C-alpha cells in the first residue's frame, strides 16, 4: 500500500485523480443531457417522469450514482486543495503578470470556475434532487389507451401519496383498456421552478462556467493521463470544444430558457 499512498500524495497522483473523476463527470453530463432532452416533449412530462423513476430505482444506475456523488466530492476537495497548494508555491506574487499571452483564460481559472459550479450544484440538487427524494413533489397519473395510444393526464390531489415510486395497473372502461401509471411529477417542479428569472439566470451563468471549465478540463485530463499524440489530439480537441464546451452547455441552457418562455 505504501506505493499507492506515495502515488496518491504526489503532485502527479493528485492530477490523475482530478483527471479520472473529471472525465467520469463528463460522461455523466452526456447521459444527464440526453435524458433531460425529454423535457422538450409536449407530453405533460410523462416521458421525463418515467425516466426519473428509472434513474432512481434501477440498481445498476443507483450504484453508479453513488460513485458519481463520491467523485463529485473527491473532485471538489482535491481541486480546492490543489488551488491552495499551488498558490503556496508562489508566496510573493508578480506585480505584472501577463497570463493572456501564453495561456487561455479558462485554464488559469479552473478553481474559480469549479467553485461556481459547486455553488450551482448545491442549488441545483436542493431544487430537484432533494425535492424529488425527500421533499413534496405532487403526483400525476397518465392513462394510456392501449388501442389508440392516446394519453390522458390527470394531476393527483395535492395530498396524494404512494409508497412505491411508480404504481401501474390496467383498467377496462367503455372506451377500451387503459394502462394507468402514477408517478411523481418532477416535470411540474422543473416547469414551475423556471418561472423565476433569477433561477434561469443562475442556470445560464452556470452553463457558461461548465463551458469554460470543460473547454480546458476535457483535453487537460487526457494530457494528465499522458495521452498526447498527433494521432488523436485533433479528435480530443474537437470533442472537448464542440461537444463539451459548446453543444452540452447550450442544450442544458436551452431547458430553463424553454420553460421561462413557455410559461
Amino acid at each position, binding site marked *: 500500500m505504501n506505493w499507492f499512498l506515495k*502515488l496518491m500524495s*504526489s*503532485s*502527479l497522483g493528485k492530477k490523475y485523480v482530478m483527471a479520472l473523476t473529471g472525465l467520469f463527470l463528463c460522461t455523466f453530463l452526456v447521459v444527464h443531457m440526453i435524458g433531460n432532452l425529454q423535457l422538450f416533449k409536449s407530453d405533460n412530462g410523462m416521458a421525463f417522469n418515467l425516466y426519473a423513476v428509472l434513474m432512481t430505482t434501477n440498481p445498476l444506475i443507483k450504484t453508479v450514482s453513488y460513485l458519481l456523488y463520491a467523485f463529485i466530492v473527491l473532485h471538489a476537495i482535491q481541486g480546492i486543495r490543489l488551488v491552495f497548494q499551488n498558490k503556496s*508555491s508562489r508566496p510573493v506574487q*508578480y506585480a505584472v503578470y501577463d497570463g493572456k499571452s501564453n*495561456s487561455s483564460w479558462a485554464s*488559469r481559472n479552473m478553481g474559480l470556475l469549479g467553485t461556481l459550479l459547486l455553488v450551482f450544484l448545491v442549488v441545483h440538487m436542493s431544487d430537484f434532487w432533494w425535492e424529488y427524494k425527500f421533499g413534496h413533489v405532487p403526483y400525476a397519473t397518465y392513462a394510456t389507451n392501449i388501442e389508440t395510444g392516446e394519453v390522458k393526464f390527470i394531476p393527483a390531489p395535492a395530498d396524494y401519496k404512494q409508497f412505491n415510486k411508480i404504481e401501474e395497473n390496467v383498467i377496462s372502461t367503455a372506451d377500451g383498456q387503459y394502462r394507468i401509471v402514477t408517478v411523481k411529477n418532477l416535470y411540474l417542479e422543473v416547469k414551475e421552478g423556471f418561472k423565476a428569472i433569477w433561477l434561469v439566470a443562475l442556470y445560464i451563468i452556470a452553463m457558461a462556467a461548465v463551458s469554460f471549465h470543460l473547454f480546458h478540463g476535457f483535453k487537460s485530463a487526457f494530457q*494528465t493521463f*499522458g495521452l498526447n499524440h498527433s494521432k488523436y489530439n485533433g479528435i480530443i480537441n474537437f470533442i472537448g470544444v464542440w461537444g463539451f464546451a459548446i453543444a452540452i452547455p447550450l442544450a442544458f441552457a436551452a431547458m430553463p430558457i424553454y420553460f421561462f418562455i413557455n410559461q
Partner: protein
Amino acid sequence: MSEKLLNLTLKVWRQRNSKDKGGFETYAMKGVSTDMSFLEMFDVLNEQLINEGKDPVAFDHDCREGICGMCSMFINGRPHGPKQAVTTCQLHMRSFNDGDTITVEPWRAKPFPVIKDLVVDRSSFDRIISAGGFISVNTGNAQDANAIPISKEDADESFAAAACIGCGACVAACKNASAMLFVSAKVSQLALLPQGQPEREQRVLNMVAQMDSEGFGSCTNTGACSAECPKEISLSNIARMNRDYFGASIAGK
C-alpha cells in the same frame, strides 16, 4: 533596420538579500539604442548607478548567446520579455517603443528564493537532476559511437528535450510555479534513448519526488511553460512523464 534611440522608464525590483522585503525602484533611461540587447541596457544602467555611487542592479548572465540559461528576468509580466523562443540576452530593445515603461522582476517561486535584486537561487533544479537526471556509466573505454542503434525519430525527439537549458522560465511563467516542463524534459531526453532504459522507472519516481519536496506546484496544463520556453520544449514531454510516472508507480520494481 536602422538604429533608433529610445527613452524608457524602468521599474526594477530591488532587494538587498533573501531576508529583505524588497520593492520597485524607478529609473529613467535616455538614448537607449534599439540595437542593444536587454542585458546591455542593464549594463548601461549599472554604469550610471556606479557613477552615481549607487549599488548596481544584480542580475544573472553568462554566455549572452542564449544557451546558458542564466538570464532570468520577468519582463512586463512574461519571462524573458515579449518575444517567443528567446532568452533575455537575445531580446533586443527594438522590441520596445519610445516612452515605454518596462517592469522587471525576478522569477517568483518558493523553490527559487531571491538572492539579490533579480538573481534567484535555482539550485532546486540541480537537486532534481541529482535525484536521477543522469545515466550511470561504468568506467572503461568509450564505446563505438554507432554501436547502439537509435531511430532517427527518437534521437530527434530526445535532442529536442535535451535542448532545455534549465533557465526556469517554465516555473516563472506557470501560475502554479510548477516545474513539470523542466523535469519532464530531463526525464524524456533519457527515456527516449536506449542508454536511459535501465534506470528509467527509478529516475522518474525519484525526480518527481524531489520536484514535489522542493515545493513546486502541480500542473494545470495551461501550456504557459511551453509557450514561454526559450527552447520551445513541447508539452508532449509532460505527457510522457505522466505516463512514465504512472507506469513506474503501479508496475515498477
